[in-house]
């Protein structure tokens, strides 16, 4: 079997499971009594173990196995969760994550995890805290837990089926069949036994699993749990009548023996007074059967079954390209049908137009991903940070379902991590400081995402000490970011936003977490490169809010289409403040530069036709000018154009690798008539 074919699937799925583990552990930490969460965690861990073992990542499998042991105890009420166990489990999780990361990088997923494994097995043994009341019971199950890849002989699902059968008055048997030594057709014989059992009832579980029996992967004996309508004696006779059967033991089970069966395998021997199946030979088969059978209920148990498939992003891009091709043909068809004027043709084309606009919506939505895919790692991160800083912090996430384009999602993670770290480290005070300031012990960090117009906003707001703007200003002056003489002119918000300048950190002590002074300017650079913007508002003593504005998508934007003579250009709507018509006589000249008055300010007037050497348009012969007022941050400028065409959603295209860094042009788009229109980059127009 070629493992590489499965590797990407393994990576995807293990990341999902790791994330689920992380989320559920966090949930469990806030509700330690909720055993159903432990069940979820156990399932994820178990599936992960099975997958890693199949793929041959032994270290991954063994670490998961140890974690599973601990969880198994918790799930069976033999161990109470406490902060040490949580920390160890989280540590284990981190190790797992780095192993999977290693696998992704093409490594073997090996890592030294002996330390964590030791901690985990100490927990299982119960001697991580001396004199614990749990010690006895935990230790009693140690052997079971640590040598049991078998887990319980019956998993939860099977035992509950059996239990229900007993409760409803059916008979449940444990049957052990041993074939004669000379038996040649072992598989056939076992099949006949199953045939008998199934004619009288139902087989719940067999050991080894049926697949192994069919392939003769067993020694001489196998055991079966079955529900049957006939008496034990009759069953014995029926099975014994099959040839080459040496012995048949049929043991009726009641609820009590069942309960002990499902909890631990060593107790099986006692409970049913039957010899444990010859362990050596069966062990391997058993591993497998238990693994498989546990997987099945795990899937049933996950209510949000997979309704999604994974698709390569390149294919989506290809789909998008093909779709825009089709749009162009649609426009042509519409033109043709209006020329030909045949009613049925017009109807068909209209229908196609409706269908294709629906299709457009779907194609665009395909690329959208909820921000949750980035947010989901933050609760854990904040928890760890708070712990290491000895602070109490509650992270409240809202709007995780807000959707953003995949390309934006991929890039936004790091800047957000930075902002959050910043809030936790510098924003929220220590417990004693908070109490002294008359605040509650627990600091709150709000992480919000929401739509607004064509943008998505992500806000990180905390109720910490706020920004000391005096200190910021002093620092800005000492670093030469601001000239001392300009200092008085700045508003508080302007001062606070200086923290995004390069080489700026107000932290007095450089900590491990943040404060190396390379932080916020990198955040700003990254977000601007995504076509977004980041600002900060802060009230000293009350808290700070970082607000990140992002474009909904990088591949489709709203734009104003304009004409310069016979050339068409698109201007991103996000940069447009207003459109207007002005009289030529109202243009002022300042130092020879044309300016206009706009909303009580004087702003520069830029001639697009001159800038782009337009061959077919020159506004100088006109008495009235159409202008578009654009902004870059809080700087404004007006550009003179020939004619407005209108607002439109456009698909962004690059100009290709041959044409790069053309000043004033950020890309291109294809218009409905199939022609290329260039997209003006307003940021390059405002100096």
């Amino acid at each position, binding site marked *: 079997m070629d493992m590489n074919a499965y590797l990407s699937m393994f990576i995807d799925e293990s990341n999902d499971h790791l994330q689920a583990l992380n989320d559920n552990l966090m949930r469990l930490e806030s509700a330690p009594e909720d055993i159903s969460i432990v069940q979820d965690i156990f399932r994820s861990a178990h599936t992960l173990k099975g997958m890693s073992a199949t793929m041959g990542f032994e270290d991954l499998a063994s670490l998961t196995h140890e974690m599973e042991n601990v969880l198994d105890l918790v799930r069976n009420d033999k161990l109470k969760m406490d902060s040490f166990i949580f920390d160890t489990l989280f540590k284990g999780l981190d190790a797992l994550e780095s192993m999977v990361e290693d696998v992704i990088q093409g490594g073997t997923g090996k890592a030294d995890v002996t330390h964590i494994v030791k901690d985990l097995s100490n927990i299982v043994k119960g001697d991580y805290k001396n004199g614990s009341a749990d010690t006895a019971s935990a230790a009693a199950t140690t052997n079971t837990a640590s040598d049991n890849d078998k887990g319980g002989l019956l998993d939860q699902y099977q035992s509950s089926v059996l239990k229900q059968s007993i409760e409803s008055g059916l008979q449940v048997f444990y049957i052990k069949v041993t074939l004669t030594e000379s038996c040649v057709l072992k598989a056939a014989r076992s099949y006949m036994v199953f045939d008998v059992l199934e004619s009288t009832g139902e087989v719940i579980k067999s050991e080894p699993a049926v697949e192994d029996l069919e392939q003769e992967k067993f020694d001489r004996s196998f055991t079966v749990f079955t529900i049957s309508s006939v008496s034990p004696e009759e069953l014995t006779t029926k099975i014994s009548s099959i040839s080459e059967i040496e012995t048949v033991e049929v043991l009726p089970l009641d609820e009590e023996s069942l309960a002990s069966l499902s909890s631990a395998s060593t107790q099986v021997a006692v409970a049913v007074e039957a010899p444990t199946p010859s362990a050596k030979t069966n062990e391997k088969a058993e591993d497998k059967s238990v693994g498989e059978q546990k997987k099945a209920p795990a899937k049933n148990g996950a209510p949000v079954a997979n309704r999604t498939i994974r698709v390569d992003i390149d294919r989506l891009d290809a789909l998008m390209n093909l779709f825009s091709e089709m749009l162009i043909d649609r426009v042509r068809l519409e033109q043709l049908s209006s020329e030909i004027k045949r009613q049925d043709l017009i109807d068909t084309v209209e229908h196609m137009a409706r269908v294709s606009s629906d299709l457009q919506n779907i194609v665009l939505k395909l690329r959208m991903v909820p921000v949750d895919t980035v947010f989901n790692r933050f609760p854990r991160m904040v928890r760890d940070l708070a712990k290491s800083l000895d602070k109490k912090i509650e992270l409240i996430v809202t709007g995780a379902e807000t959707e953003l384009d995949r390309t934006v999602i991929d890039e936004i993670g790091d800047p957000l991590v930075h902002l959050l770290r910043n809030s936790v480290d510098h924003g929220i005070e220590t417990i004693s400081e908070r109490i002294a300031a008359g605040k509650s012990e627990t600091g709150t960090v709000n992480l919000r995402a929401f739509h607004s117009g064509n943008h998505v906003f992500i806000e990180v707001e905390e109720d910490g000490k706020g920004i000391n703007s005096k200190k910021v200003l002093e620092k800005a002056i000492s670093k030469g970011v601001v000239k001392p003489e300009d200092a008085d002119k700045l508003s508080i918000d302007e001062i606070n936003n200086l923290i995004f300048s390069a080489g700026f950190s107000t932290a007095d002590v450089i900590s491990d977490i943040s404060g190396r002074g390379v932080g916020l300017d990198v955040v700003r650079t990254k977000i601007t490169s995504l076509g977004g913007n980041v600002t900060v508002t802060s009230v000293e003593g009350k808290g700070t809010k970082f607000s990140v504005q992002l474009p909904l998508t990088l591949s489709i934007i709203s734009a104003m289409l304009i004409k310069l003579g016979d050339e068409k250009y698109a201007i991103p709507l996000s940069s447009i403040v207003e459109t207007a018509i002005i009289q030529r006589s109202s243009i002022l000249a300042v130092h020879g530069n044309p300016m206009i008055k706009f909303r009580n300010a004087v702003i520069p007037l830029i001639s697009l036709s001159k*800038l782009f*050497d337009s061959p077919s348009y020159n506004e100088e012969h006109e008495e009235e000018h159409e202008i578009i007022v654009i902004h870059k941050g809080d700087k404004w400028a007006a550009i003179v154009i020939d004619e407005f065409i209108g607002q439109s959603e456009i698909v962004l295209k690059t100009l*290709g*690798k041959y044409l790069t860094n053309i000043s004033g042009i950020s890309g291109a788009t294809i218009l409905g008539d199939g022609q290329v229109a*260039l997209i003006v980059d307003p940021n390059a127009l405002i100096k």
Partner: protein
Amino acid sequence: MSEELKVIVFGIANEEYGIEVDKVRTIERMMPITRVPKTPSFIKGVINLRGVVVPVLNLSGRFSLAETEVTEHTRIIVVAVNEMEVGFIVDSANDVIDIDRDIIDTPPEIVGGIQAKYLDGIAKIGDDRLLIMLNLSEVLNKSEIVQLEQLEV
């Protein structure tokens, strides 16, 4: 055994040029070109090639030859070199021929005004046909565009 080479033959002015066939993506008829401002004059602009925006150069302009009129034979040859897709406007493109690598000679220093570095060599076909083989990566050399831009400014 010498190597056979499949070559697309196209004409600019009265000369015949060749590009290896595996570097050619497609050959298109003339289509509307969107001018890109602030670029050297030989860059005619960009076209929509089935949903992909592709820059188009006028090869004669690139070699500082006089640009010829667009006729019904004018074609855009789209080539893919070094992960770049670029279209060339040529006066005609109508032939694919096999040539022997052995018959390609190193070019003389100056050929019809084109610097030798743009050429891979010259193939002599029959008695009176000369085929100029282009060195595409040199033709599409970007650092040279930057120099040209600086000259124009």
